[in-house]
Structures are given as C-alpha cells and as structure tokens.
C-alpha cells in the first residue's frame, strides 16, 4: 500500500478514482463504472453490474414455456420481438413443429422493424451523449412511427409479447401493411436528415474517428457480436450464417467495415437501418396466406434434452439454451446475452483515452443494462 502511494507521488500525478453511475444518463441505465483517471486520461474501467438483476433465468424455471416469453421482453427491451422469437424458435425446434410461411414472414418483418427502432434510439442517444440534443428529438420522433405499428398490431409499444410458441398472439392488423409502407416511405426521406445532422458534423467526426479501436482479433477473442463486431470486420451475422424464420429467402448483404473505431460502429448501425428497410420491402407485399398460429397442446412439454437457438438481435447474438427434463417447466434456462459480452471490451477500448471519449465508446457499444444483468 505504502509502496503504491510512494509510486503515485513520484509519478507526479496521483490516480483519481471517479464513480460514474449507477444513476447517470450516459450509462443508459443502472450501470456503474468505476473509472481510474490520471488527469483526464482513463487508466482503468471497472464495470459494476447487478443493479437491475431480476433473476430472469431462475424465474423461468418455475414458469411454463408460454409464460417465459413475456420475461424475455424485459431483457433487451429494444429487441423485444427478437428475444420472443428466440425462445419460440427454440421451443418449436424441440417439438419439431413446422411453422407456416405466414408466421415466418410476419416474424421477420417485425424483427426488422424492431431493429430499425432500436438503431433509431441508438442514433438518438448517441447524439445526445456527444452533446447533440437535436438528435434525441428527431430519433424519438421517427421511432414513434414504428411503435405505432407495434401498438396497432401487438397491443404494446415496447413490451409486445407478440410471439408465442407455435405462432403469433393475433393475426396482423388489417392496416398493418399500409402503415409499414407509409413508414418506409417516410423514413427513406428522413434518414438523409440523420446524416446531415450528425454523420457529417465536424465535431462528431473529430470526437469519434479513431477513438476506441477494436481490432478483428480482439473482437473474436472477446466473443463480440452484432454491429460492434461487424465494424471490426468480423462477419458474424446470424441471419446470414444460420438463417432462421424467413431470412433464407431474402437477398441482403452483411454490413461490414474494417476500421473498428467508434465512428464505424455508428456507421454499421446507420447502414443496417437502410438494409432493414430493404428486407421489409422484399417481404411486405408477399405475406403468404395461412393461419397465424399452429394449434398447440394446452400444456407444452418439451422432450427430455438440451436445446439451443441463436438469433441476431439489434445488438448481437442472443442464444437461448434450454434443458428440459420432460416437465412443463424447463429444468434450466440460460440466455447468452450480447450486451454482457460486449461490455467486456469497454475497459480495453477506453484505456488511454480521455473521459469524454469513454462516454463516446460506451455509447457506441449500445449497451442495454437490463440485458447485461437479466
């Protein structure tokens, strides 16, 4: 201890420990970062998690499979649809049910709409983290249109619980297709505004370019997935690698950059919004006819065994691992959440940068804290 103090005194500068969070707007939730600083330079970041731990995995053990779905809404609340879908796909895979095309297509459209609204909120809050408050209003204004689509069809805005094992809770609303087309037409006009406001802005570019570089090797070594990894050139899109739902019939290219800095993590998400609109346009006019749900047994029992399904949420790869002992409740459920893994590089990325860059880096990882803690 004394040696440590002596060293820090002889160094000329003492290490200063700053506590960011758990109640801080730029950590986007109840994440506590204990930052060691030398002047303004970050030397170490220690994330403290667990402030919003609800024990979802343990709760799942006492619930039936249809009841688990509504808990997954509350993990990554911006990818609620995709989380629902992951559990449903896993249960359907275990029961070996064939899902009609209509359900697959609707699920895919909903998942892509979820991705768009999630990236819109990323854009809004990322701009706000870097001091551009206008972005926050513009992003939320456009996100409202997607939430209206969800509200009309699913009944909920963020907490949708629209998927259920074997299909969907209800059929799509008669006005669904019209509303989605209107939204895409509208958003194609407003997305260039995003670029004019933030992407080209000189202050924004200076603050993000070259900041927090993540190399391809580091991304793979830490198990980073999603837009964060694709900005470093790691091709990891589950929609491409292991197509589920209707992704096998769609033409789309994975968005990839090689630079891996904060700016390119932002660019991946901007391009994914365009790409998601292309995917929706391919599907919206040819939703096949058919039932919106397969008739299931009133009590779903999975055969004994272990099942794993992964999907691509807006932030990366979500894995659902279910061990069943043949009862109506799962024996064990494990969620491999993308945000928990993505948080692990924060310390490495922000070392040596200034404290303001820490906010930019953690913003570009697009962390959702309830998904880290579960």
């Amino acid at each position: 201890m004394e040696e440590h103090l002596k060293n820090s005194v002889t160094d000329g500068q003492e290490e200063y420990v700053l506590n960011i969070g758990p109640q801080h707007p730029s950590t986007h939730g109840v994440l506590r970062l204990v930052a060691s600083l030398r002047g303004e330079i970050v030397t170490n970041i220690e994330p403290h998690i667990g402030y919003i731990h609800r024990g979802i995995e343990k709760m799942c053990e006492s619930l039936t499979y249809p009841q688990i779905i509504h808990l997954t809404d509350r993990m990554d609340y911006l990818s609620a649809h995709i989380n629902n879908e992951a559990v449903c796909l896993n249960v359907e895979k275990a029961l070996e049910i064939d899902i009609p095309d209509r359900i697959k297509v609707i699920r895919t459209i909903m998942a892509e709409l979820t991705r768009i609204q999630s990236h819109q909120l990323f854009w809004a809050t990322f701009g706000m983290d870097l001091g551009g408050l206008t972005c926050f209003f513009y992003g939320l204004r456009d996100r409202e249109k997607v939430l209206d689509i969800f509200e009309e069809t699913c009944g909920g805005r963020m907490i949708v619980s629209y998927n259920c094992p074997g299909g969907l809770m209800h059929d799509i609303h008669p006005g669904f297709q019209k509303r989605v087309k209107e939204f895409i037409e509208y958003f194609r006009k407003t997305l260039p505004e995003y670029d004019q406001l933030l992407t080209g802005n000189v202050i924004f570019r200076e603050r993000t370019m070259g900041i927090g570089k993540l190399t391809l090797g580091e991304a793979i070594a830490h198990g980073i997935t999603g837009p964060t990894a694709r900005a470093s050139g790691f091709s990891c899109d589950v929609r491409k690698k292991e197509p589920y739902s209707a992704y096998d019939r769609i033409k789309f290219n994975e968005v990839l950059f090689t630079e891996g800095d904060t700016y390119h993590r932002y660019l991946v998400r901007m391009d994914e919004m365009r790409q998601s609109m292309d995917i929706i346009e391919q599907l919206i006019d040819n939703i096949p006819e058919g039932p919106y749900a397969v008739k299931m047994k009133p009590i779903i029992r999975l055969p004994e065994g272990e099942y794993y399904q992964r999907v691509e949420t807006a932030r990366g790869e979500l894995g659902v691992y279910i061990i069943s002992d043949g009862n109506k409740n799962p024996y064990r459920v494990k969620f491999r959440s993308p945000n928990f893994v993505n948080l692990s590089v924060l310390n490495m990325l922000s070392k040596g940068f200034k404290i303001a860059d820490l906010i930019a880096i953690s913003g570009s990882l697009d962390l959702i804290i309830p998904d880290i803690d579960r």
Partner: protein
Amino acid sequence: MRSIVKYISEVLSGVWSLLKGMKVTGSYFFRPSAIVTQKYPENRKDLVMFERFKGEVIMPHNENNEHRCTGCGICEINCPNGTIEVITKTIITPEGKKKRAIDKHIYRLSMCSFCALCVKTCPSNALAFSQEFEHAVFDRSKLIKISNKPGSQLMKGVE
C-alpha cells in the same frame, strides 16, 4: 504553405458541415405541418387508443349486467405473476341443479405484466383489454380490482 491551405479548407468544410445540420433544424421553423407533438393532458377527450392496446384486463358486461365468465380458473393458472384470483361459489339454478359460478374475479393491476395470456387462453372469451392507460392512483389498495360487477350473472348459453 500547403499546410495552411489544408488548415483553411478543413475549417471551411467544418463550418459547412455545421451549416448543413443547421439547415435541417432551421427548415422545421418554416414547416409547422411537420411537427408531430401532441399536447397530451389537453387532448384527452379526442385521444383515441388502438383497439388492441393492452390497458388493463376487464370483464365485459352486456346491458343486462351479464358476463361470460364460468369461473373455470384457466386464467388464474396461466397467469405468470399470480395477478388473477377467481373465487367461486355454488349457486342453485332455477331448475334446481347445483352449479359453479364466480363470486369474485380479482385482478391485481400492480402485479400484471400485460402478457395477454389470460385473455388469449380464456375458453369462453370472458376477458378483454380496455384502452385505459392512466393507471396512477394515490392508494395502492385501489389497484386491486374486482372485474365482475356486483349482482352480475352468467350470460345465457355460455358453458
């Protein structure tokens, strides 16, 4: 010399990028039609929610104060949080038979997570969602609601 030209061009392009952003925000001053803000507490009367909006679970009654709930308790079994409690009683029908009917259908709004499993699994479509969204009350006990109205009966033809 070259570095000075580079510096000036960087400054100019930087200022130009800022002006481009300001053009976007400025244009909204002259386009009031593009403003989407709603004045919420004032527009309460003409605020229409979507028909599928999950406000709170209610039991619809018809004009004769009749509902469709038979008291089977499937909603209670399916609820993940213990939100619903069905208390039944035994009544004697005019034909003299003993029959099960609901005494109280208790709905705890404070525990509800709006998963819609009760509404979906109800075999006689007795439950529905209302469009009510202003749930704030001053006393916690007001969040425990009794869905069936006093003196209500089972609708004829519902088994």
